[in-house]
């Protein structure tokens, strides 16, 4: 028996549309559920107080500080390496075996799961280099983790700068480096910042790579050699050890809001960057 094409078409639209609707519904549910239970817990005190009894009571202030410092430190380390790689690949060389190996390495790095980064950070930075659980160990580990993202977005952004800009700059007598510094990078900036924002978003939500490298100390860090606990790690510990569901929801709400904020800003910037480029 043959089903008429008109009916299979209608059935397909219904099923595929249903799948898309379901995906969107899951997204909305996750966000609404967490915010619905978490927002009532939030208050200025929750954000600015120190936790008491391992987080059972009190606020989340030290984890807020950790969540600010750790991604920033990671970006400070990853940005020069990432943008440098992108500049080298797009401005200083042509496709050859060396660039192919570099690209292959970047692609592989992007696929490594965070638990492997955690293991590596622990055995290399914490143990072998004797740095211990500290912000610096965590930041170096996260920097390696986000490096592929920064390289890729920077390269895309640099490639999008019109060749005529470079030609004009060179014809005015600028060296290649001057052209990169004064013409290419300023024009690629929005794209690079997008990559940075996406990376910060990933660092904020990261747990496995952070818990084994930066530790989980609830004390306020005084230097990069102190251990810290990020919101994601705090939330994980609260939820997994059943310390306080209420505070877990509150922390999750702050966590989700920060990630959504960072990601929305980066999408908005990417969108503006693309629409300016195609004008």
């Amino acid at each position, binding site marked *: 028996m043959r089903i008429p*094409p*008109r009916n*299979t*078409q209608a*059935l*397909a*639209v219904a*099923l*595929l*549309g249903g*799948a*898309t609707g379901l*995906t*969107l519904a899951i*997204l909305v549910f*996750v966000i609404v559920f*967490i915010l619905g239970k978490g927002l009532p817990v939030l208050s200025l005190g929750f954000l600015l107080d120190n936790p008491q009894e391992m987080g059972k009571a009190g606020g989340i202030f030290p984890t807020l500080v950790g969540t600010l410092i750790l991604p920033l430190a990671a970006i400070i380390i990853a940005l020069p*390496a990432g943008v*440098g*790689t992108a*500049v*080298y690949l797009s401005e*200083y060389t042509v496709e050859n075996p060396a660039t192919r*190996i*570099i690209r292959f390495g*970047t*692609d*592989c*790095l992007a*696929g*490594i*799961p*965070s*638990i*492997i980064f*955690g*293991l*590596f950070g*622990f*055995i*290399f930075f914490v143990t072998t280099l004797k740095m211990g659980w500290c912000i610096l160990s965590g930041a170096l580990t996260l920097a390696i983790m986000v*490096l*592929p993202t920064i390289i890729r977005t920077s390269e895309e952004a640099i490639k999008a700068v019109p060749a005529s800009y470079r030609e004009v700059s060179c014809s005015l007598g600028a060296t*290649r*480096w001057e052209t990169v510094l004064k013409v290419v990078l300023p024009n690629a900036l929005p794209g690079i910042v997008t990559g940075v924002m996406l990376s910060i978003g990933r660092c*904020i*939500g990261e*747990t496995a790579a952070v*818990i*084994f490298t930066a530790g989980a100390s609830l004390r306020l860090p005084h230097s990069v050699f102190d251990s810290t606990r990020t919101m*994601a790690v705090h*939330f*994980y510990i609260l939820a*997994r050890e059943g310390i306080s*569901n209420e505070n877990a929801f509150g922390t999750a709400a702050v*966590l*989700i809001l920060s990630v*959504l904020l960072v*990601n929305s800003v980066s*999408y908005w910037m990417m969108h503006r960057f693309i629409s300016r480029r195609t004008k």
Partner: protein
Amino acid sequence: MHQTGDKLIKWLLMALAFTALTSLLLIAIFIFKEGVPFIARVGFKDFLLSSDWQPQAGHFGIYPMIVASLLVTLGAMLVGAPLGIACAVFLNEFVPKHVTRIIKPTIELLAGIPSVVYGFIGVVVVAPLIRSQFGGPGLSMLCASLILGVMVLPTIISISTDVLASVPNAFREGALALGATRWQSVHMVILKAGRSGIVAAVILGMGRAIGETMAVIMVAGNTPQIPHSVLDSVCTLTAKIAIEMGSATGAHRQALFAIGVVLFIMIMMFNSIAMMAIKKRFAGK
């Protein structure tokens, strides 16, 4: 003066360009250095194929964890692949461009939600639901598969959408001109043309699922056993590493790194297959 300065900068940038590759090598070297001698000492077969994991007694068999990781990944793909591919097809072929431009970034936000949050949703919403509807402990293979299936959606959707968008418009127009409906053009022409790329998207999704840790720890129950049903609690490779890493020393810690080696090799295999498939597609263009 200018000349030498520029040359110096070129060398500096080249050195920076090797950071990613160097990091990758360092990661591989340090994890293998801890793990491989251990596997050699215990014996390849005893490590991979024994079910006896008792670190105190010196027994390190990871067979149940390998089975659990593969089954949970398979389960996640059964949930995530049809849903993700359906989404990508719908957004690319059935919906006007300006609607897609709003929905796609919204779905990509799914990727930004931290994995611990998914795990938490699994614990407080999905697991109780499974417990009351189907029985069993709730925290189970089924729960892990559902949560991971949702977590791999952004990967599958965004790569599949790119693949479908790269299918030349002439293919669509040709099919429609021959009197095919949209759906006929999709399943007879476009999905066939994009097959290798969609397979790559699914394999990359598998790589993500098998490497996911925190969400799985929270929802899989973590009993190291060969599951008899989807409602049984299981312990994956990643979960084993993360749970015992904090307290492990000596041979026990090396054993966890050896699990890391197994995981590293599995993921590298998945990813190289997917990368080759994608490269071949776009190189042919």
